[in-house]
């Protein structure tokens, strides 16, 4: 609900400056762009009022910290140490002395100003090209004070988009399964957090086992597997209202749910008499359609972004492999032919790649291949990892990794990790508890 209050007012259109700065995100970036994030300036009166509301000493500095951290985590930018900044934030925002910023090797500069306007948080920011001595973006937002972290994420998205030429992925959330307790008796809850690990909320209490939550492209709804009353079924959850309902009336386990790209259908597996096949259910008409009919295990379905194709894994060739078919179930083609087992295909939001999990010689890999199976590229190898989920711009994958236990069965952990499509910038994603089954939302604002 809170998101609807976010108003975006563009006060100045970006000037079509001749951009000298350009960040290439198609290759591993070994020399991240030096960028100065000047703390957003704030007048004393606004500072005091937000201190009372938000319990933050200087909300301007806090917002710039969000931006700085996002830029750093992306691996594409190198935010410079603030101790070296010569210009005061308020003056820099009005008219940066570009020589000073060039002196500390900044190529880009972010400045801004925070004010309290009738109890609302008003933030304006500018992105400057230091070497060309030009303004690249100037935008202002007005929102409820509680939304201050989102303002930082939106600023990062604007900067990322201006400098890379592609949409960002910072104003997004991750839904995942929070895990606690011993390995033989894990307690699992649905949890949601901002992409940078803040604002964690638990959506279930842990009374029943829950697995594999996935976002609807519109972000309001989540589909997941719950063992409520010991009946493993696919559920639908409205994040805002907390309302949950079982999807369909199947006489057996339904699992591996995902939304269609338009959010109108759920695609999932239904297991009956030892055989799992793929079905869809239209959420409005509740019409169920059988998509595969094969004595093998067919599961982990994922639509192409245009909705015309479905990737899934099947052991119809005896071992788990990735297949692609038309969305009505015809033209089934195997696409994985490398050594090992392949599973959890997930279509990139750009449509050109499929991310997957691979098991070969006792190691697990996260990789990508083209949709015809060519061009396989393994991004990361580990003892156990699976379930990649794409950032909405198709540049980053998030997945989970489990550790090997020692001879006494101790030392188990499950954590979220992310890696760039380039295979660089592998990072652990901070969560309050152990975590698995991450699903990345689309951008909350556009």
């Amino acid at each position, binding site marked *: 609900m809170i998101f609807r209050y976010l108003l975006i007012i563009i006060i100045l259109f970006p000037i079509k400056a001749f951009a000298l700065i350009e960040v290439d995100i198609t290759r591993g970036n070994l020399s991240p762009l030096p960028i100065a994030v000047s703390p957003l300036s704030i007048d004393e009166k606004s500072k005091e009022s937000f201190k009372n509301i938000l319990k933050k000493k200087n909300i301007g500095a806090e917002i710039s910290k969000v931006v700085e951290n996002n830029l750093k985590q992306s691996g594409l930018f190198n935010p410079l140490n603030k101790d070296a900044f010569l210009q005061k934030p308020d003056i820099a925002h009005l008219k940066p002395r570009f020589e000073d910023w060039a002196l500390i090797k900044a190529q880009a500069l972010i400045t801004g100003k925070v004010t309290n306007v009738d109890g609302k948080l008003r933030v304006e920011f500018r992105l400057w090209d230091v070497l060309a001595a030009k303004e690249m973006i100037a935008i202002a937002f007005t929102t409820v004070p509680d939304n201050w972290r989102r303002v930082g994420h939106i600023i990062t998205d604007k900067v990322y988009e201006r400098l890379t030429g592609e949409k960002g992925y910072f104003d997004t959330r991750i839904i995942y399964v929070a895990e606690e307790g011993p390995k033989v*008796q894990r307690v699992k809850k649905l949890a949601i957090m901002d992409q940078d690990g803040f604002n964690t909320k638990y959506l279930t209490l842990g009374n029943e086992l829950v697995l594999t939550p996935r976002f609807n492209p519109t972000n309001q709804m989540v589909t997941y597997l719950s063992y409520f009353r010991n009946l493993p079924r696919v559920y639908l959850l409205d994040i805002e209202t907390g309302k949950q309902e079982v999807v369909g009336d199947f006489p057996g*386990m339904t699992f*591996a749910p995902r939304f269609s790209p338009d959010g109108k259908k759920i695609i999932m597996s239904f297991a009956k008499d030892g055989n799992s096949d793929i079905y869809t259910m239209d959420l409005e008409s509740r019409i169920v359609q059988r998509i595969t009919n094969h004595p093998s295990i067919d599961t982990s379905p994922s639509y192409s972004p245009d909705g015309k194709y479905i990737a899934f894994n099947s*052991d119809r060739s005896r071992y788990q492999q990735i297949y692609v078919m038309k969305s009505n179930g015809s033209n089934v083609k195997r696409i994985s032919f490398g050594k090992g087992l392949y*599973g959890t295909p997930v279509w990139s939001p750009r449509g050109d790649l499929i991310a997957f999990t691979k098991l070969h010689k006792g190691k697990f890999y996260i990789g990508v291949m083209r949709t015809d199976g060519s061009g396989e590229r393994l991004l990361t190898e580990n003892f156990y990892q*699976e379930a990649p989920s794409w950032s909405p711009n198709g540049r980053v994958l998030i997945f989970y990794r489990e550790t090997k236990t020692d001879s006494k*069965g101790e030392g188990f952990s499950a954590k979220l990790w992310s890696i760039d499509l380039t295979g660089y910038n592998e990072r652990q994603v901070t969560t309050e508890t152990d975590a698995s089954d991450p699903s990345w939302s689309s951008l909350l604002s556009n």
Partner: protein
Amino acid sequence: MSCLILSACATKKVSKSQMEGDVYTGTDTVEYLASGVPDRVFFATNESVLTTASRETLRKQAAWLRKNSTINIVLEGHADERGTREYNLALGERRANAAKDYLMTYGISSSRISVISYGKERPVDSGSNPLSWSKNRRSVTVKAN
């Protein structure tokens, strides 16, 4: 040093005697539905085929169930941790149904049997080694009433 070698040998011997191929044949985790009636059967990696030993166990269960005709059962299918979560849910379901089909051929009505898969979610052994994994690839028969 010699002590180390000795203990290493001993461990190896134990695990060898508890597995045939990669199917668990030991009794560490096994509980009993009644005297002489083991509650579980074990599977090879990625398999749902019943071994000779599994079929013997299930025949004992069937005989016991025929004698105790008021008892209903749940077959809980499980997988080890070395597979993707969703595939393992399907595999657990397939394993439990392999056991169900066998019990039915020995005269147990399907109305007395329900099946649930836990995939890799409920291991009995938390180890990350072939012996632990073999104990976790199982179908367990549990009394439902």
